[in-house]
């Protein structure tokens, strides 16, 4: 079976934070303890939505050392394919769900003399766990958190009360913006940057850091891409000898799984590389949406990441 180990959990809290974001708390059905994890880890939540099974990754935001429960925060995305909407409308206290063991693709570099965290919107969640981890180890950190408005500033109150000196908040609707030039300029040697938020923000921070010569390995980022809907298309799976249809609202990976073919994955968000699949034949255009393949590989069309990428054209044959 693909993906990380599974854990059966019960929903023990559903807490709406604001118009868009709701927090969920999971405790193990077995009554025992959950695995410890490291700050920055995510879990993949299985959602049974009629005949469709959706698997969406969410960052764990609770204290990594608290093994009694995990919490995640989900931002409702009305344009998306419904995973977040399902969480908001169909999940209630007492429900049993299946989640994966924690997987960390955004871990702290423990060599850093200082951890400089830059968050945008719901991108705050992995930092909440990292901050708890660092506080326990007396780590040196500083957070810069941009939100759309006070009303949508999830966990702003909590952060500013518990860490008034380390947390800086910026509200878009009050035209407050992170002064990145000054911020990066003033950092001590050995500082590592972590950024999690919308794609635009990640690109902006990475480009600025590269421009001023920040070492590449000292810049960490995490962006889960939600698979985007798109035109339906047909795929031939060469190894399992099946022809499958990928619907408008499902990802290629989901369509492969629906056909009963076991395909590898971890993050389901174009980041981990685990789902990489060889393309046997492609007459048309592969719409690469992942962060994994190099640009040259994307141009070559010999590989595809089925968790987020799609296809438009006549024939697509995969080695799966």
């Amino acid at each position, binding site marked *: 079976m693909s993906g990380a180990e599974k854990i059966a959990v019960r929903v023990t809290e559903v807490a709406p934070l604001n118009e868009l974001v709701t927090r969920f708390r999971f405790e193990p059905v077995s009554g025992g303890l959950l*695995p410890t994890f*490291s700050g920055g880890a995510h879990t993949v939540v299985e959602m049974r939505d009629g005949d469709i099974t959706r698997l969406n990754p969410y960052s764990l935001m609770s204290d990594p050392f608290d093994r009694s429960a995990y919490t995640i925060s989900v931002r409702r995305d009305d344009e998306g394919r419904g995973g977040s909407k399902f969480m908001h409308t169909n999940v209630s206290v007492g429900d049993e769900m299946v989640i994966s*063991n924690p*997987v960390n693709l955004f871990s702290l570099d423990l060599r850093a003399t200082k951890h400089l965290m830059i968050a945008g919107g719901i991108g705050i969640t992995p930092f909440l766990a990292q901050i708890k981890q660092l506080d326990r180890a007396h780590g040196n950190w500083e957070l810069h958190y941009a939100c759309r408005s006070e009303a949508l500033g999830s966990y702003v109150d909590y952060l500013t009360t518990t860490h008034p000196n380390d947390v800086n908040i910026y509200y878009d609707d009050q035209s407050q913006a992170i002064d990145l030039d000054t911020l990066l300029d003033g950092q001590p040697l050995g500082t590592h940057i972590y950024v999690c938020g919308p794609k635009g923000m990640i690109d902006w921070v990475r480009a600025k850091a590269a421009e001023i010569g920040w070492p*590449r390995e000292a810049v960490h980022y995490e962006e889960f891409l939600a698979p985007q809907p798109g035109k339906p298309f047909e795929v031939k799976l060469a190894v399992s000898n099946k022809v499958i249809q990928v619907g408008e609202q499902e990802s290629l990976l989901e369509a492969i799984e629906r056909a009963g073919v076991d395909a590898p994955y*971890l993050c389901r968000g174009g980041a981990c590389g685990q789902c990489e699949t060889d393309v046997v034949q492609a007459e048309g255009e592969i719409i690469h949406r992942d962060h994994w393949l190099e640009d040259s590989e994307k141009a070559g069309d010999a590989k595809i990441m089925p968790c987020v990428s799609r296809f438009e054209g006549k024939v697509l044959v995969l080695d799966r």
Partner: protein
Amino acid sequence: MTIQFHKETFRGEYSFHNSERAIKRFPFPFDKDSYMYAVNMEQHRGGPADSVYEKRFDVDEHYVSEMEDRALVLADDPLRCQSLPHMTLAGWDLLELIMVSKSEDYPELFELHRDGDQWRWVNKPLGIDDTFTFMDETTLPYGPMEYITRQTQGDFCVLDQRDDNLWMDAGTVTTQADWSLDFDIGMNFFEWHAPVPLAHEKGIFVRALKFLLNIQQGAPARRLNWTMTVNPLLDTSPENYHKWGIQKTTLTPENIGSKQHLRVELQTFFRLPRSNALVFPIRCYLCSFDDLMTVPKWGRRLHRVIRDLPVELATYKGFIDNRPMMLDYLSKFDDGQPTSLGIWPDLETEPPLKVVRSS
């Protein structure tokens, strides 16, 4: 089954020996009659009863003596155990993993009692009963990694994972096949594997690293590696090459059966939860040629593997000069009959050795 711990040495008079049971459970590394490097990894989720795969950390009859040998090596050369400052958290992860695994897998030998951060660890074979505060180094006689690896067979590399690579930033290495932690410390996966022949060209390390980076909590993996050692020496380090290198020249047709050992490493891979580091235990098993030949399938197969092994591998593994003498010995145990697939001895089903005509 209860384990009778041997009182034996891996140096000096070399009183190390394997019981019949140890021979039967020896991890013979060849699943067919030939050998080449491959990405030979599988899940580490138990195995046949009493095999070395059964438990997460195998404890066998050599446990107590191996730990005495480790203490001697560390007393001589403290640099065999190193941990860069950012790896302490991973050390606690490792201590927890081993204490939990051993106390669950061998409750008659090890006990772990946890009351919040107050832990009591009982190691009966080594006569240890310590109480300490988890995550507080001042409450242990050594750092957490050193403390627990002084009580666990096998070498340990603790790898930091960052920048899509693994970095050898901590370890306890006293039973190694001719490589040095002090030399490799701080290196990445490709750097420390640089001396290995042929495997880079075959793309083995690129694929192996991809696999390792994706090893998940709760889903450990394993593989076997092997080499040859004259005399049952655990510490075949470059630091001490001047002591053991010359022993390779003491081999004669008369003593080869008892002196020449097949050295097998059971290598496992575990993701560590708090640090997101990876730990790589390398457990060394030794078996003399004479003892191996008591399993007819292994006799036939070892002869064929050693005979056909590429020169590059025999050179890298350090037995190219002794290969002709080994083949003279081994050929007497190869009657040309076919062998069954897989590494297990298959004593009940494999035919006994037919008399081999001397050539």
